[in-house]
């Protein structure tokens, strides 16, 4: 159970709609913004900025193989005691 209840898409004010467009497309008609982005959706601009950072780092296909990036993600998460 998350600390804050996940926000529903219909709770997003019109002025923040642009910030949630990427997650709306990803969740295919879900009513609630769940998961790691759901934890940020109470501040849509923040969620959107983290998504942009993700696209430019973890999800960027640069010189590091994707397997290495995912392995780093798992290892850092283990090291931080992250249950998620």
């Amino acid at each position, binding site marked *: *159970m*998350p*600390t*804050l209840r996940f926000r529903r898409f219909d709770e997003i004010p019109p002025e923040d709609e642009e910030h949630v467009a990427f997650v709306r497309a990803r969740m295919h008609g879900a009513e609630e913004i769940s*998961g*790691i982005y759901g*934890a*940020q959706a109470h501040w849509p601009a923040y969620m959107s900025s*983290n998504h942009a*950072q*993700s*696209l*430019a*780092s*973890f*999800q*960027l*296909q*640069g*010189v*590091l*193989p*994707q*397997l*290495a*990036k*995912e*392995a*780093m*993600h*798992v*290892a*850092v*998460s*283990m*090291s*931080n*005691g*992250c*249950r*998620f």
Partner: protein
Amino acid sequence: MLRLGLSDRGLTEILAIAEHTRSMAAVVEGFGLRPDVPSPPDGVTGELVAPIAELEAGAAAETLGQIQRWAQAVLGTGHVPAFWRVLARQPRFLAATWAKNCLVLGPGELDETTRVCVALAVAMNVPSPYFSAYFNPWVRRAVPLDDSGMVELAAAVMHYVSFNTIAHGMMLDPPFTNVRAEEFRPGGQLEDAPGGPPIS
């Protein structure tokens, strides 16, 4: 990871590198060892347990000899890193730890690029200045990475730390528990698990 085709053993290899790096970093920080790769530090020594001189290794000489040859080939140093020379004060523990090190960071299901990137990422996250310096030349050689590539690696680490903090702070439940690698294979019940391809 399992979605990318790694086996249960491969995931355990990642765990092993993470815990091994963290445990070594605890000793280094506890004894105040300064980074000594690629070169030993200048100035007054402040280590709380002094590294032994290679010529005074005694019962640890054989293991230190192996480490010296490895360090020269992989890290590009002419000396045995201080971490190993501190452990040499307990030769049996040095030998056991070096053997584990060779197993955990040696050939396995993970390729060398993945293994050493994992080790550096954990060292940066701990944070361990000593092991961040120690793994730096190895990553640069094995991947290989230039400064731009190193920043790509650092950017990924930043992202993981950010999202770990968010997930922990908001107490998110894990999306997967009690799984096996075969469940992510074609036909498995998690074949369609979320996670998209990389973005170019």
